[in-house]
């Protein structure tokens, strides 16, 4: 049986194809303002990659903020349930899932393979991928290089503003006062980690902790979170498609 999971998030759309429970293909593309078109496109590209015909897909489940715009999906499941299921697919011992998405972040606690409790932050960009993007652009760095830059820090500069816009001004004033870019970048990672940890403490944080979302590819972020939470943080093989994998798994049942 071949099924598809489509996760239309705020910045990227992901499509995953599973054949008999095995990952056969996936695709990640940028989201355009036309969510329906985006969903269609990412689905088409994933099919092409796998060399599978649309007609062979048995069921499609959509998730993410744009889930209700995926008109060809058989049903929708929220990203909370999908991230939990997807995280368990990659790391069966997962008890806590921290997802840092493009413009929200969430912490999900899992009990007996099911979502027990969750908290979400989507009111503000602090503690999201967007925060990193803004800081990277203020420092003229590429977002994918941020982690490596942070690794070269001697110490972490304290970033105390909670608001992304004010934090950007703060970063600029640190530059003006002669702080090293590496230290500032390390400080940025700590600021996000501390915000995420504060939110995570509202649910039970139990090992194994799994970090998902595009930001999980950043090694410095993983380390900052580990320091803040005082426990190891595991990263799935493909952290960005965890929600889509979860959706595809729901499509199987």
């Amino acid at each position, binding site marked *: 049986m071949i099924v598809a999971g489509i996760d239309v998030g705020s910045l990227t759309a992901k499509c995953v194809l599973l054949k008999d429970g095995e990952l056969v293909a996936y695709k990640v593309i940028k989201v355009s303002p036309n969510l329906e078109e985006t969903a269609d496109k990412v689905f088409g590209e994933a099919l092409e990659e796998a060399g599978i015909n649309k007609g062979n897909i048995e069921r499609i489940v959509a998730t993410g*903020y744009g889930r209700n715009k995926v008109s060809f999906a058989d049903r*929708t*499941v*929220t*990203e*909370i*349930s999908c991230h939990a299921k997807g995280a368990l697919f990659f790391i069966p011992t997962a008890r806590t899932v921290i997802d840092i998405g493009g413009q*929200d972040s969430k912490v999900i606690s899992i009990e007996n393979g*099911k*979502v*027990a*409790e*969750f*908290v*979400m932050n*989507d009111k503000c960009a602090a503690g999201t991928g967007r925060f990193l993007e803004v800081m990277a652009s203020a420092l003229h760095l590429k977002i994918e290089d941020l982690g490596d830059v942070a690794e070269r820090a001697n110490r972490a500069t304290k970033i105390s503003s909670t608001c992304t816009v004010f934090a950007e001004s703060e970063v600029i004033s640190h530059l003006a006062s002669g702080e090293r870019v590496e230290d500032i970048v390390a400080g940025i990672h700590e600021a996000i980690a501390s915000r995420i940890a504060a939110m995570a403490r509202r649910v039970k944080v139990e090992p194994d902790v799994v970090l998902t979302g595009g930001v999980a590819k950043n090694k410095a972020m993983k380390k900052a979170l580990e320091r803040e939470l005082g426990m190891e943080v595991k990263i799935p093989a493909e952290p960005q498609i965890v929600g889509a994998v979860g959706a595809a798994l729901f499509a199987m049942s």
Partner: protein
Amino acid sequence: MNIGYLCTYTPKELIDAAGFTPVRIFAGDDQISLATAYIQSYACSQARGSFERALKGELDVQAVVFTRCCDTLMRLADIWERNTDMKVYNLEFPSRIDEESKDYYFRELQDFVNILKEWGGDVTVDSLRESLKLYWELEEKLKKLFEVKPDYEAAKKVQEMNVRDAIEFVDRRLRKVEKSGVGPKVLITGSVCPFLEVYKLFEEAGLLLKDDICTGTRFFTYNTPLKEIESVEDGLRFLVEKYFNKAPCPTKHFPNDDRFNYILELAKDCDGVVFLLLKFCEPHFYDYPQLKEKLEEMGKKVLLLELEFPIASYEQLRTRIEAFYEVIA
């Protein structure tokens, strides 16, 4: 004359008996802008949003009665008095709900009757008898309506109407109402929520509702049966009993933990509890950790939704509510 009020501890019966119409004041749909010059942004958006409407001239009320339930409402009364043309009166509803404070509240009601007289409204034994009976009738009918199916639109609308029109309105709803379907049931608890879309999100997610919301069930849940009165004083004594025994709110102190017991009892037949809390609402937020713990001990799933009026993004709320459905279904 229309007399505005914000809190369900306001004795609407006296206002009606004096020949005025009590009108509940809700926050509006527009972004809060004018009120920002008078109230700090860390006051709740119900207070700021209500005052915004007053400043914009959207309210057809000529006087406002405050019950001084929380710090914000107390200060709002002062701000309202200084910055609008409306008459403002502070009715001191006791914080401590016990036998000793009954006499105090009785005297407060006597003072309020005199104020209503100054404003040109006479409370007589006949007018008070009628108002007590009408509100009792309205409350019973709303209870009946909510038993069949919660109707938050009706609950909101009747709070802005004369009680006589309100009764007719609920009668019409009762003739049309159909029983809710099946699905997991949640208790929603919190202060006020006049934004009807929020309730719709729950229904659309497949959840059946029961509530402890000040603009919902707490508006009509009083536990004192109607009594025949012989004098205005009799009527005031009855109102003391009625308001002391109403569905409790966290702004009050009850010697026997009435508030917690009330919530835990309501939650018994529910699959989950959603705290629909208004950002910066201290009375509700201080209760939240303990209540959550007690509800979880009962085996209930709990979700906290923080609201700010006007509600900017319903889709974000929808995701949380649908996810909660997936957790409890």
